[in-house]
């Protein structure tokens, strides 16, 4: 069962949340970030090339211009491959674990899987980010030494940064699935 809704992130950009319910014990949430804008790309390229042209008129060496083109190309490729995240996906499978995937603009995917045995809970936390106070969804991991302690906090959807309404949707779905393992004697 697939479902798509539109939300906004903390800066006001548009986000699309896709929900897929594969089975009562497996759900997937896919957040798509806004694409790279043509305006900012043109602005950066023009600045770099104008600076290079200025240097060229000073030192009369055409290597400066070729170097500027090279730098722009490499910089763009590096940005697309290492920095710009297109989509963030959360896959939660009952009694197996939680998986987070980030897909970059160049097609690279980076995945982290956390086993259900290590997950204590999924909560919405508040944080101070620059001059704002934002909400973010995070996974609390169990401490192997202390049974009631928390060893690590793993934040989710870090580059999409959705607002509270989107987070509440995801939170409710995750809690439904996590409830299965917390109450083993009652069956749903």
């Amino acid at each position, binding site marked *: 069962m697939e479902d798509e809704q539109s939300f906004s992130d903390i800066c006001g950009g548009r986000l699309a949340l896709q929900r897929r319910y*594969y089975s009562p*014990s497996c759900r*997937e949430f896919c957040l798509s970030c806004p694409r790279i804008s043509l305006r900012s790309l043109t602005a950066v390229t023009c600045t770099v090339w104008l600076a290079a042209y200025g240097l060229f008129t000073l030192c009369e060496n055409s290597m400066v211009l070729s170097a500027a083109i090279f730098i722009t190309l490499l910089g763009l490729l590096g940005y697309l491959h290492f920095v710009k995240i297109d989509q963030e996906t959360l896959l939660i499978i009952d009694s*197996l674990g939680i998986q987070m995937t980030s897909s970059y603009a160049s097609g690279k995917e980076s995945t982290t*899987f956390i086993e259900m045995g290590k997950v204590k809970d999924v909560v919405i936390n508040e944080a101070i980010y620059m001059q704002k106070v934002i909400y973010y969804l995070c996974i609390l991991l169990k401490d192997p030494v202390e049974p009631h302690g928390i060893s690590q906090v793993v934040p989710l959807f870090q580059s999409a940064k959705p607002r509270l309404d989107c987070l509440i949707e995801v939170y409710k779905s995750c809690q439904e699935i996590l409830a299965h393992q917390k109450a083993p004697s009652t069956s749903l």
Partner: protein
Amino acid sequence: MGLVSRGTAAAGLGPARAAVRPSPPDAVPNLISTPPPEGAAPGSSRIPSMVLKAFFPTCCASADSGLLVGRWVPEQSSAVVLAVVHFPFIPIQVKELLAQVQQASRVGVAVLGTWCHRRQEPEESLGHFLEGLGAIFSHEPWLQLCRERGSKFWSCKATRQQVPTCPATSGEDQVMLVFYDQRKVLLSQLHPPAALPDRQAGDATASAVGLAAVFDTVARSEALFRSDRFDEGPVRLSHWQSEGVEASILVELAKWAAGPICLLLTCLLSLVSAASACRMFKLWPLSFVWSKLSTCEQLRHRLEQLTLVFSTQKAKNPTQLMRKANMLVSVLLDVALGLVLLSWLHRKDRIGQLADALIPVADHVAEELQHLLQWLMGAPAGLKMNRALDQVLGRFFLYHIHLWIGYIHLMSPFIECILWHVGLSACLGLTVALSILSDIIALLTFHIYCFYVYGARLYCLKIYGLSSLWRLFRGKKWNVLRQRVDSCSYDLDQLFIGTLLFTILVFLLPTTALYYLVFTLLRLLVVTVQGLIHLLVDLVNSLPLYSLGLRLCRPYRLAAGVKFRVLEHEAGSPLLLLMQINPLSYSRVVHTYRLPSCGCHPKHSWGSLCRKLFFGELIYPWRQRGDKQD
């Protein structure tokens, strides 16, 4: 399938009925094979409403119908299927095989259920027959996997014989099917290694938790994978070997030849190390010189590495094996780069050019130093120096330079020969050539080092004198016993002389300080150049190239974890997932498998370095041979 196999299978059932009826605890020495009693603590191993996960190898997805053989992990309610046993089989022989495998690998292997791969005609009788097998090989829970040929959807059922205590849960569990690539899971290692070595013999693999248990089970069940469905044995199995095994003749030959070659090289290396540990080299001047030269350090390091690589003992665990492989690849790359350098040096008589250029360069450096000293002896940067001290220091250093130039000119006929022999040492490796370069630089700038030491000692003495007399000025002194500053009453003549000396030292301070500053800067420049060379040597020494190559070409071997992908899903049929290996990132590979190097990391922080410079204490940027760190 058809009548033939059914007939023989039915015949196989006959003797089994007459044979001993197995009971579950007998065949499956798992930790916990019975469900926990009512009212068990929530921390107990079996959670009745947990979804049952069946890990199924992708190579068996196209295999013919048969029995599922594998391991049941009750803590996670997951069944790891290792192989499929095909018809016809005799149950006794299957049980014997499983018992053998269990003994050899200490993994609780058992028959987990049935696998049905339906062809064109649906076979009703087969279904009943398969259910009947549940009576012979009873296992809790009994899995029944079924697949239509050409269909993407599977059907899975897991039934339990014993009636559960809570009436709400039914006799059937929800099943989730997870596909995994058996060959890749067999060969991969998890980082960090999750499975601990077994403490007692005969202990089932209980120490791995979570998904590491799956990796552990597959890795330990090598004994099960030895026989195949194409073999002549009594039991025909399907597993990853059935897809065909690739092997390389070169690899097999190399393995066979490795034994004698290792033996030969170990003997040679032990001869070399015995020769170098000879008494003669321990005498005082030689041992001092050896400890200062970085070339000897590098050669010793390489000798140790080669001894470890070619030792006749097998590696005890995968980490050691990787370390050996990394060392070998590093040495080979080093030698290859060294040979490239050698061929480049000898091509257009570059050594002759280098030797011809060396003496004029040394002369030029000495001339520049002389100009510098003349400038210091005059009025450097407009500052006014104390004429007498200036002249003394200047003439002292100029005489030094004169001696040095004489020494260089004495050596000049032999330079080319020395350089040629030194160039030959590049075939021992690029790192050796770079270490020799660093040592040559150190030898050629020895006079700068001497000047730095003289300047630093003078400055240091001056600073100590000044601080002590400053205390006298204020009526205090340094108490050596208590290691603190105490007040003290001085006599008048003590005060008078102290004040005079203080004044003299203060007015001579700028001159000494300037000489110290100039020579320290020169020394730091030389130290920086040497440091860069050492950094490069360190890089070649410690980079784990074999691990990086493995990560590039066979990323499943170095696993950071797993990742799941949901395959075709339809409402009503069980969930199908694909488990793939998530490889380690390159930075973690380098961090985990870095080779220990003899590299020198500066012991001082920037703060302590500045403090030492200010007080004129000598800086030793390289670790001395006495304190060796790993």
